[in-house]
């Protein structure tokens, strides 16, 4: 389908596709099997300047928005969602700085993130605070010019690999969500440790770890926004990065769909290729319809966000929910079409089905997204 991308957006997509097809495809199965962090691919993305597509020009980036970020994520995900999420997690860590950083903070971190010299991460989730963000227990107690952080974070993407973390902690317990603040924490800070690395079902090339804070001293200059605005920082960031999950889902689905078509044309049963059977044709047609619908919704949402719209939580959540459900359905059907060969690790669709699952879970489970959407539409009418 023609999506009327600008010439520059077409170039970004073409370049990301080339890296995905020429480099990511060759390491996807190995990195998944061995859990290897794709630093070499991130270096390629840095060399080609794709690490800076969503960073404003004044901080050394390309000056694009959510759309440009999503185009890269989508193409990388066609071959390996683990690689894509390692790239996207830096965007998740960078967006709070773009949105709420002070000028000095932006100047200090964004140019290096744009050049790929710094990898970022976003540290919000805790053992007892996932979708219920306001229940986080990590504390930040102010002492003089410093905040002292104590607590732990769980399931942090790019954990242990990132150089800069945006960490959310409670500065005033009595104020509930209004008592949460966001801080920039660098990996060398005293009292900051990386804990257990998770052994995941999918996106195994990405690093997901626990983070531990033991009397970690963070200078007050590293407070993002004002004290007590952490919840807003997190929610406004998610509004911009949920389409990234949708892009990941569209990419995974597209990759699985392409493998399924090629296989259906080559595999012969009863003397004819699988693609000649109507049962298979209908499955392929449904895959196409769903992927194009998800992509159309994703790109529309990206355009809405990048146009400067003020409120887009509903649209952002809706494209994440729809695309991730499509990815799960399409990858499952791709495995079904490929039968035994789909179920073993010799073909990538088995990995794609595992990778797809997480898109329904992270950055807010799809159930929570539906709560957000329902709350907005009930308010509207």
């Amino acid at each position, binding site marked *: 389908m023609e999506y009327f991308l600008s*010439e*520059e957006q077409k*170039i*970004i997509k073409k*370049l990301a596709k*080339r*890296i995905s097809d020429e480099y990511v495809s060759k390491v996807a199965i190995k990195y998944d099997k061995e859990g290897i962090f794709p630093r070499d691919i991130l270096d*390629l993305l840095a*060399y*080609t*300047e*794709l690490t800076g*597509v969503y960073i404003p020009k004044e901080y050394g980036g*390309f000056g694009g928005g959510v759309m440009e970020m999503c185009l890269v994520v989508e193409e990388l995900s066609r071959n390996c969602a683990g690689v894509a999420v390692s790239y996207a997690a830096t965007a998740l860590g960078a967006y709070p700085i773009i949105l709420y950083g002070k000028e000095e903070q932006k100047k200090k971190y964004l140019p290096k993130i744009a050049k790929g010299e710094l990898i970022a991460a976003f540290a919000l989730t805790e053992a007892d605070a996932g979708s219920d963000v306001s229940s986080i227990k990590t504390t930040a107690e102010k002492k003089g010019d410093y905040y002292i952080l104590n607590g732990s974070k769980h399931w942090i993407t790019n954990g242990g690999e990132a150089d800069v973390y945006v960490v959310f902690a409670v500065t005033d317990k009595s104020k509930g969500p209004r008592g949460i603040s966001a801080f920039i924490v660098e990996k060398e800070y005293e009292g900051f440790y990386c804990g257990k690395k998770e052994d995941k079902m999918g996106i195994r090339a990405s690093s997901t770890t626990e983070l531990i804070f033991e009397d970690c001293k963070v200078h007050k200059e590293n407070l993002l926004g004002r004290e007590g605005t952490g919840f807003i920082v997190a929610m406004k960031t998610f509004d911009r990065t949920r389409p990234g999950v949708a892009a990941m889902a569209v990419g995974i689905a597209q990759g699985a769909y392409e493998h399924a078509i090629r296989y259906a044309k080559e595999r012969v049963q009863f003397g004819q290729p699988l693609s000649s059977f109507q049962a298979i044709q209908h499955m392929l047609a449904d895959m196409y319809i769903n992927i194009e619908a998800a992509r159309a919704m994703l790109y529309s949402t990206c355009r809405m966000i990048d146009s400067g719209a003020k409120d887009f939580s509903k649209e952002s959540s809706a494209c994440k929910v729809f695309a991730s459900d499509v990815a799960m359905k399409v990858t499952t059907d791709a495995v079904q079409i490929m039968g035994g060969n789909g179920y073993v690790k010799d073909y990538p669709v088995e990995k794609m089905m595992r990778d797809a699952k997480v898109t329904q879970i992270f950055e807010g489970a799809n159930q929570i997204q539906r709560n957000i959407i329902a709350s907005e539409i009930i308010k509207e009418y």
Partner: protein
Amino acid sequence: MKILVCIKQVVNPEKVEYNPETRTIKRNAQHLMNNPADLSALEFALRIKDVYKDVHITTLSMGPSECESKIKELIEVGCDSCVLLSDKRLAGSDAYSTAYALAKAIEKLGNFDLILCGESSLDGETSIVPPQIAEYLNIPHIAFASNIKVLELQRIEVERKVKNTVFKFEVNLPALISVKKESSYLRLPKLSFMIKALSYTPQVLSLDDLENFDFSKVGAEGSKTSVDRFVEQCFEDVKCEIYEEIEDAQIECIADLVTRFL
């Protein structure tokens, strides 16, 4: 330092179409690609530019206007300017005529410190164009280089690998070096260069732009060689032999094969 890299747009060998009447290859723009050995030469030029910031890289191609779309790809990796020598009177030129026309174009474009070429083109494979250009320009040349190192301003070291032996040459600039095709691989493009390429138009020269040009030396008429006929090569199916147990003689055979192909 001013570097010129000669880059030919060849037809992708998997999509080649032959015109039996004119005995030439059809140059359909969609099936064109930049000659791999020339891109290897370009990578060496870019590596020199990585180290020495005042390096200016120009590329020179000869061919029909269809080549322009492929020439833009050279801007995407960091070339500063691209020139296309395009003139219908060049059609049917052989290696001798091509070298003459390219040499005259190089003279027109200015004084280059270093001229790089690929060892040969995928379609012609004569390997004689680069040395002939050097002869016309009366500058030293070294063929089949596997590495190039700038020693000091106006002096370079060139390596040529023959089987397991590396020959090292030093030469004063200006010089022309032809590069072996797999001695380096062209880097990925950069986003900012790709954006620049969007609005970039190569400089196009015609034979009328060249000074003291002898028109009798180019085209099918001016060529000293011509293509007599094309023969399609058919490959027999490769037969495999499977050995259950590996014996010493087989190990020697495998070792011999590995040595020959390295």
